[in-house]
């Protein structure tokens, strides 16, 4: 009945679980930024392997994430195709050489090694961060999630709203289901049998009660929070916040080192691109 569409936290008893949420968040953000900036293929392959090894150690089962994975892969492929359609010569522009594989240089759609190489880099960029993001989401206790957002400088009100919104997703989903069925019982046909416009109108019928019941929920929860002094001070403490342990410092050190290598490669390559065609 209930498909596991959303990815969920589970204590898998690995060293990644024991790292503090802030460490994982900082590492994920740091590595993503450097990975997005660089086009050094050697470096990208390096951190890709690094993140796959971590993913292996995280004991996350592939079937738990297969849905998310297939969505991401689908979008990446689509994106790569679109890049080729709109800019088939971009690789040539970047690397300054042209090694033709198919077609001739005065055709709009030709295929060059440079373009393939450029798109390979893009593919690496899209995918290396995915295991890291999954590790962060699936090994961080949701309770610690807000605390770690707060620790890296985001206001605790925003951090808490994010955490609460995440917590309410299942409730809203079940509300939606109940309301939708109650409306169908009244005679609103919203299954695939009905014409498109009827379905849209049926959807609107569900939105109204859903919005009202969600607004009720928000009012009650915000009163309950206020009655327990949420928002009183500029700061708050977190029961679940983890103090940095030796492993956290170690992890941050490794990540910092990786980032420094990335920056050093900018100097070596004289820019963001590594050019094997020269």
């Amino acid at each position, binding site marked *: 009945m209930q498909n596991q569409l959303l990815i969920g936290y589970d204590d898998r008893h690995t060293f990644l679980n024991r790292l503090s949420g802030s460490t994982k968040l900082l590492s994920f953000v740091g590595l993503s930024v450097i990975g997005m900036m660089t086009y050094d293929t050697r470096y990208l392959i390096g951190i890709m392997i690094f993140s796959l090894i971590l993913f292996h150690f995280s004991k996350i089962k592939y079937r738990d994430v297969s849905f998310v994975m297939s969505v991401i892969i689908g979008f990446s492929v689509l994106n790569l195709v679109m890049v080729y359609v709109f800019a088939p010569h971009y690789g040539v522009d970047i690397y300054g050489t042209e090694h033709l594989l198919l077609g001739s240089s005065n055709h709009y759609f030709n295929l060059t090694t440079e373009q393939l190489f450029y798109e390979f880099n893009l593919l690496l960029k899209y995918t290396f961060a995915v295991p890291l993001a999954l590790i962060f989401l699936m090994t961080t206790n*949701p309770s610690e999630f807000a605390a770690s957002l707060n620790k890296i400088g985001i206001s605790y009100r925003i951090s808490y709203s994010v955490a609460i919104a995440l917590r309410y997703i299942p409730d809203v989903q079940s509300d939606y289901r109940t309301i939708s069925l109650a409306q*169908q019982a*009244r005679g609103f046909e919203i299954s695939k049998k009905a014409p498109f416009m009827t379905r849209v109108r049926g959807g609107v019928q569900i939105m109204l009660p859903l919005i009202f019941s969600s607004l009720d929920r928000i009012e009650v929860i915000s009163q309950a*929070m206020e*009655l327990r002094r949420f928002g009183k001070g500029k700061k708050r403490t977190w029961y679940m916040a983890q103090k940095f342990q030796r492993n956290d410092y170690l992890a941050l050190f490794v990540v910092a080192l990786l980032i420094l290598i990335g920056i050093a490669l900018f100097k070596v390559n004289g820019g963001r691109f590594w050019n094997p065609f020269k």
Partner: protein
Amino acid sequence: MTAPIISFKDFSFQYNSQTEPTLRHVNLDIYPGEKVLIAGPSGSGKSTLGRCLNGLIPQSYPGTVTGSATVAGQDITQSSIFDLSMNVGTVLQDPDSQFVGLTVVEDMAFSLENDQQSQARMRTATAKWATTLDLQDLLTHRPQELSGGQKQRVAMAGVLIDNSKILLFDEPLASLDPASGKASMALVDQLTHTQDLTVVIIEHRIEDVLQQPIDRLIVMQDGGIVADDRPEAILRQSLMAQLGLREPLYLSALKLAGVNLDDCHHLDRLAELQVPGLTDKLQQWTAGVTLKAPVKHGQPLLTVKHLTFGYDPHAPIINDLSTTLYRGEMVSLVGQNGTGKSTLSNLITGFLQPQAGHMTFNDQPLETQSVKERADQIGYILQDPNQMISKTLIYDEVAAGLVLRGVDPATVEQRVFDVLKVCGLYEFRHWPISALSFGQKKRVTIAAILVLEPAMLILDEPTAGQDLQHYTEMMDFLTKINREKQMTIMLITHDMHLMLEYTDRTIVLGNGHILMDATPADVLTNDAIITQASLAQTSLYTLAAAHQIDPTEFVAKFVQAEREAR
């Protein structure tokens, strides 16, 4: 004498959104260590008074205040919600919607986090209160996974952790099954003594609260206090019914037996009740009433055979369940929270698909019918009217089902007007639904289903959140359509009073099976079933047992006498 901890002097309050004051000239003193019950019909201002105590008024609900109100020495108009919350801990009606933390322990520590306490101090405090409230084994659970009683204990822990001296409960019994409600009241009483608390309980189920001693009963009506005395004095004057409140059952029984209430001692505590010659009077009365043969309903309407369902097929919620409902029956479905009462109705209405089993309605198999087709014959009214209402005007909401079924406009209007009259909503037909009270909204949802003329109605907690007047109106109305149209009605409820007084048959659900299927009087006098299904003995049972009368017979006769009086 000590100074009052809560003091209202000629206090009135008008919400900015309203044209008239909700509280009028309230004078009220509550002293430290008192346990006070505030009761009153809906709209009497009792919830508003509660909001004044915890500071939501005038901070979150702006309005005009006249007179003065102090809580723990602080003027409520001058102090913030945050300041007041150090002194007043509030437990809201529905613990489910007030949990903030993702786990029990985090929810307990929530206010300490906001006070920027260190983790070490939070751990000490949560450990202490987990021991006091018996939550040690639940600390890492999600609050949503707990039973109703456990949830309420977590909510209490979350406010007691501030060491506040005043504890305010807003309808604490509304979302609990009878057994948990009883346990919860006992716990509150114990805490009052061990933690030196002042307790204010807002609740209209007076009999359930009175299971534990109450120092003072305050009755509100139309924004003012109309009675403020020891419960015994108010009970003796038989003021309850007059004030729109439900009288304890044993009190009605005493009156039926012709007992003069002035002769009674400890009228508020059944266990200590002393009345000269009570045994004789009760036995005489019982002997004088003959039970009529129950009305037989012989025409099967809904048959359920070997029904099985579970989200996890290895742990079925409904396990090989079989039963038959007959045309014209009024049935109550009871059982512990989470035992599958709603799941069963969802299976009947087609909201869920069973893994095994077979159902027929009017000799037609139900499996092949869609949600909409089943809805033409079986109306299902959800507990929360907000989940059902999809239009902004009452007329449109009630007409929607007919319009979608392509009924011609003239007939639609006729049928909608008829049903609105039956439901007492005709005068409001052009009103926006947002202007209605909770109870009125509930009646709109019932009207919207009734207009489709189903052969059977399933109502989930139809009387929750309704005061005695609306409760009686609603139930009289359901009884009327049950009799006149031979409509089968199934009520899902926690309310023992409701099942006893209005239904002819009770199905007790537990562990996915039917534990018992008998008359309400039989069910409520069966100790084993009461424990298994988290029901509660009624005071009638206790009264009968204490005076050597067969409880089942006594309860049945009492119900018969009450129905005849109606």
